[in-house]
């Protein structure tokens, strides 16, 4: 089978070997305390508990009324110590519920539910109840994603198993250790997308795997066979290239389609889900387990012995040192929540593992770069490597000149911020940072115009 691919993109050093031999091992924060953000994907939630409340593992502690809200559960049995703003991924400060675990072992899980006997509504309700969001990083509520508007016909459900970020291997390990759970999760998603029990959809499932993980194919094929899903689930091998894991390129490599500009995968007839998310969906039905734990990779050149671990959601990364992993002395210069291409550089390791935290990377000065930006030499490398076929250097040039419209025509608003352009830039121009600023300006303008129009309409309505 020939590996499929897309045009453009880059080949950063993978560093997968640092951690892909490490089995996913359960770990617990040494302080016996978890810091659970009140909102992890979807619309902002409200805390449902007060300081001093005793909570059970799996109990809903924050939720909201809206369709876009996704509940948050306690990941431990314990007592609420504080509810306050804490540092979270992205360097912002956000309301978190701090719970100290006790030894009582109270559990409040959901009843087990047979996914294939459920209707679409029942299944979607379970996925929402379990608080499942996309675990690849974007944290989009899964019950919304699996329920596209009726006029969008879904042909493919794609499992994003590319894991194209350097260092991260938790998806790879999950597929190696629990292939049948991944396949089960995919089968459940297919069941939901195809309309639930008695549904008439015809979507097929595809596990999209980068060929550096081709050795997983026999295992996954066996799992598909055991599940009796050979007619509806297949595996698609794609070339190892960054940013293969971006949903636009998962779709184009696996199906040959393109997601139209500013539209969703459903507009190209696709639903995409992460490996971890598929497993979480399986657990939500088979075990009644809400999304309160996740696997992640702790890696990077500054980590003494990189690991794959499974921790309660809300575990502070710094709480895993030194029991779970150690840092080399004076080696770390950047702490990244996520991988080095798209992850957030954090000011400290005192931030919680959220539902969307796929890894934490501790980079040494040698691995990352701290060079100052210099003048663009117009070499065109960024244009050549942009998988979206945009012109990053020209976008930034127009932004500097204040020509927002021209910057848009070179693709400002279509940029997925994958970072290929900045990766290859010899002058180290902060392309992505400048493009983000440009997008912010455009969005602010749009909001202002919207407000103006609304004010005008209100004025005219008042007359």
């Amino acid at each position, binding site marked *: 089978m020939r590996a499929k691919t897309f045009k453009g993109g880059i080949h950063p050093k993978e560093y997968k070997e640092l951690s892909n031999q490490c089995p996913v091992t359960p770990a617990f924060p040494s302080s016996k305390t978890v810091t659970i953000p009140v909102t992890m994907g979807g619309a902002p939630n409200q805390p449902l508990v007060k300081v001093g409340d005793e909570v059970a593992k799996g109990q809903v502690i924050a939720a909201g009324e809206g369709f876009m809200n996704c509940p948050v559960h306690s990941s431990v049995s314990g007592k609420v110590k504080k509810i306050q703003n804490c540092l979270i991924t992205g360097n912002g400060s956000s309301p978190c519920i701090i719970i100290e675990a006790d030894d009582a072992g109270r559990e409040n899980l959901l009843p087990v539910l047979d996914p294939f006997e459920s209707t679409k509504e029942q299944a979607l309700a379970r996925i929402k109840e379990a608080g499942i969001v996309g675990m690849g990083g974007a944290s989009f509520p899964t019950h919304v994603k699996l329920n596209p508007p009726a006029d969008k016909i879904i042909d493919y459900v794609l499992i994003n198993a590319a894991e194209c970020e350097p260092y991260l291997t938790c998806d790879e390990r999950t597929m190696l250790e629990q292939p049948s759970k991944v396949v089960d999760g995919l089968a459940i998603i297919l069941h939901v997308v195809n309309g639930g029990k008695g549904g008439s959809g015809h979507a097929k499932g595809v596990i999209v795997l980068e060929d550096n993980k081709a050795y997983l194919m026999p295992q996954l094929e066996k799992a598909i066979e055991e599940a009796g899903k050979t007619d509806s689930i297949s595996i698609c091998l794609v070339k190892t290239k960054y940013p293969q894991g971006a949903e636009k390129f998962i779709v184009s490599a696996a199906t040959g389609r393109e997601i139209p*500009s500013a539209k969703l995968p459903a507009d190209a007839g696709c639903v995409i889900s992460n490996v971890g998310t598929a497993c979480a969906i399986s657990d939500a039905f088979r075990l009644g387990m809400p999304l309160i734990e996740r696997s992640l990779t702790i890696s990077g050149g500054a980590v003494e012995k990189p690991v794959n671990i499974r921790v309660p959601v809300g575990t502070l990364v710094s709480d895993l040192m030194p029991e779970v992993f150690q840092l080399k002395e*004076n080696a*770390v210069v*950047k702490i990244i929540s996520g991988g*080095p291409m798209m992850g957030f550089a954090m000011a400290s390791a005192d931030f919680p593992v959220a539902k969307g935290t796929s890894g934490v990377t501790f980079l040494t000065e040698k691995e990352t770069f701290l*060079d100052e930006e210099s003048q663009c030499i117009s070499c065109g490398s960024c244009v050549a490597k942009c998988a979206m076929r945009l012109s990053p250097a020209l976008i930034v040039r127009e932004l500097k000149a204040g020509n927002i419209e021209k910057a848009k025509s070179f693709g400002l608003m279509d940029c997925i911020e994958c970072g290929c352009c900045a990766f290859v830039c010899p002058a180290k121009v902060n392309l*992505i940072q400048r493009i983000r600023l440009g997008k912010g300006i455009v969005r602010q303008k749009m909001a202002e115009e919207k407000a103006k129009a609304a004010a005008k309409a209100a004025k005219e309505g008042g007359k």
Partner: protein
Amino acid sequence: MDNKIYVSSSPHFNFKCSTQMIMGTVLFALLPEIIMGIVLFGLAALVRILVSVASCVLFEFLFQKVTKQKIVIANLSACVTGVMMALVCPPTAPVWMFIVGAAVAMIVAKGLFGGIGSNVFNPALTGRAFMFLSFPAAMGASWMTPKTLGGAVDAVSSATTLSAIKAGTFAIEDGTLWQYFIGNRAGCIGETSTLLILISFAFLLLAHIIDWRAPVAMVGTVAVCSLIAGENLAMSLMTGGLMFGATFMVTDYATAPVTKKGRLVFGFGCGLITFLIRKFGGYPEGVMFSILIMNSVAPFLNNLTARKYGYGKKEAK
């Protein structure tokens, strides 16, 4: 964790390549032409190359100092300009002219336009154009016969092939083509050997320093036009500065478009104008002017972008 933790926008990875490394690689790629120039034209060539490089670096330094900018001569781009300008000048031009050319290249063509990456016209070619138009007698009226052809170091006698072709006095003898291919001919210091330039081209291509589009489009256009006009194809390609210009000048980053389609059109335009000047113009060679003319439209050619992802062929803007 006592050391400093840095926070910045993603990505946190970078391909280990800098402007300085790129310029260094280009200098390395120019070595065969430099050595060939010295072999053919002796000390005269060496002195001119050194003077040209030294004055380019000095003028860039002075300009940045006087205008209170950050001194960036360490990125080696001034050295590249210096070498290139010397290689496209005749070995007979007086040394002081190279200093004048360097001043025009570094101050007028580059510094005043905003320095590296912001210049509209190729600095080396602008310097050469200034010399060529100001001192036409020294810059092309007479040519030095290479030492390898028995010319004494200061012999100033032979005419270049293009001027001979133009005058209708050129005849191809046995072995001429091979001599031209390896570069055993009169001409500018570094542009005589097609063979060596092809080697440099292949090297720069494999090192991912240059893109094939503009050079191939330029040479291809000259070839097709020459065939249609009934000229000798091999001679059209191997004489003058075509090969050198296509390899080193139309691939200059700042003064060529950055988009793929733009580069194809840019190369095509350079090739077409080169042919027109050679065939119908007042000068025997048209490479320099064709590139400078196309430099002026390069910013507009950047509008020739690829179809963006997610834009159907019809609604693509």
